[in-house]
């Protein structure tokens, strides 16, 4: 009877120790994952801001002006305003 009690207690203790180890290791793994996800979220946020900046730059008038200057639009093609558009409608 005494032996059975000791063996059962030993088995339960061993089981608990293994379960505890499993929980602790799982906890550490999950915690590491949480840490990694936090870092990745931060990094994505930063990349997002950088991309937003690049998109805005490409759509800006400043960029359009630089491009126009680079391609020589402003040198060769000064805008001509049509003062008397009504002639365009005369049939």
């Amino acid at each position, binding site marked *: 009877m005494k032996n059975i009690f000791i063996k059962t207690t030993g088995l339960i203790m061993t089981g608990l120790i293994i379960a505890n180890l499993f929980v602790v290791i799982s906890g550490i793994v*999950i*915690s590491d994952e949480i840490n990694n996800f936090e870092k990745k979220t931060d990094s994505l946020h930063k990349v997002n*801001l950088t991309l937003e900046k690049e998109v805005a730059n490409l759509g800006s008038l*400043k960029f359009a002006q630089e491009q126009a200057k680079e391609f020589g639009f402003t040198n060769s093609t000064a805008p001509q*305003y049509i*003062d*008397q558009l*009504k002639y365009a409608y005369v049939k």
Partner: protein
Amino acid sequence: MKIKLIFLIFIAFYVALVVRLFFLQVLYSPSNKSVYLKTNKLNPIRGRIYDQKDQSLVLNQNSYQLYVEPKKVKDKDKLLHLLSESLKVEEASISPKLDMSKDWVAIASGLTQEQKEKLDKLNLKEIGFDYQTKRFYPEASLSAHILGFLGKDSEGEDVGYLGLEGFYNRDLRGLPGFVETERDIAGRPILIGVQQRVEAENGRDLILTIDKNIQEISKRRLLEGLEKYKAKKGCIITADPKTMAILSLVCLPDYDLEKYYLFNENFYKNLAISDLYEPGSVFKPLIVAAALEEKKIKPSDTFNETGQISVGEYNIKTWNDKYEGKISMTRILEKSSNVGMVYIGEKLGNKKIYNYLEKYGFGQNTGIDLEGEASGYLKPQNNWYPIDYATVTFGQGIAVTPIQMIRAFASIINGGDLMKPYIVQKIVSNNKTTEIKPKVERKIISRSTSDIIRKMLVSTVENAEAKWDRPKGFSIGGKTGTAQVPIKGFYDASKTIASFIGFAPASDPKFLTFVVIYEPQTSIWGSETAAPLFFEIAKDLIVYYNISPTQ
């Protein structure tokens, strides 16, 4: 026996552990929770600002603060040299910040990702970076006075100053959140411990009524105008006269939003909303509209313009001291006759003049959603002398802001409604979009009076004494103004504020533009400076809006 001994030892260890924990957690619990409890502030992202076509005007950008831990520094001279080279800053300006007695010192803030990566490659153990965000302006200082800038308050927190950043600071800044987690010695979260997270509420985005293309046209033209007419400063406001939605607002000189701290405070002042000046002749149509509304005059009524007139001890004359005899009310506007305006003022009566000045909103804030608006000053009626009633009819002796002037003018051409000017048309948060609708403050004149004054203003442009290079085929209405600048109680004839306010197309105005130029040197007259500048802008806007010719 052996088992009992092991059991007792185990019990003893267990009791010792419990006692130790009791000491640590109850009797001498650490007052500094940060030992095990990590609380991070979750900073909200400040709201972005877009123009009416969702083109970005203000965004957020990654930024880093560089710090040094002086206790870890082994070779100060080498560190200074490396930092100076990487940051392109003189060693002499870094050296005073590097206080070796401290644990942590900030060296530079606002560093870009590229600068950080460059410093990272140096593998310096004694330096580190704190992440921050900073404002980024894709169109640089195109709308400096509208946007305002982001500075710091006395506690080092971000706070918006002037313009939209100041006016909408509460909406833009958002609400910070926090995350509180118990961490182990390696900094990993303890899953069964405290885990509390309150999300930050990001700032709201602003969608403006501003059209950045019109803003660009206005700024480019104003810059050209100031150079051409050798003027000190100037402003151009363009609005939709029906709603008083501001389409562009530019004042020069302005400042670089990213380096606002390098500029004198005078550059921050938005002249369009905070500078008081005497409007001069652009004011005349307001008085004529009031007289028409009160049925004191008709456009075809005549006035005998024979010469100077006296009001008390003062003589009032026309700008060129020339007189045409019998002229119509429309002709009074066309030739901008001060003498004729005094006649119209007399017909209207002093009480009505004052009532209409109040109705037009002079002496009160317009309520435009920009920080820094001045209300102007309309002195109490019991302090008015007869000469004041005479001079106010041609826009002298009264101080107004350009935004008050354009709002009042809009009311006489839009059917008679005094509108509240506004720049933000939508406020967008994560789950809600609030639209800001045009607001009618009050009715000033009837639609029929408004139709009459619009026609008179078209005639004023077409039959003005000055001939301008107008876009042909389009009916444009408007009025010039030249106001002398009062200095120590006297007017300096050489210093004027030249202006022109105009709209097109006259039958159903799409835009109303007000040009003000301070102290032009090539000519003191609005007709020779502000007016040509207006017509240049009008040509651009007619093309931009694809307005068809009507004449």
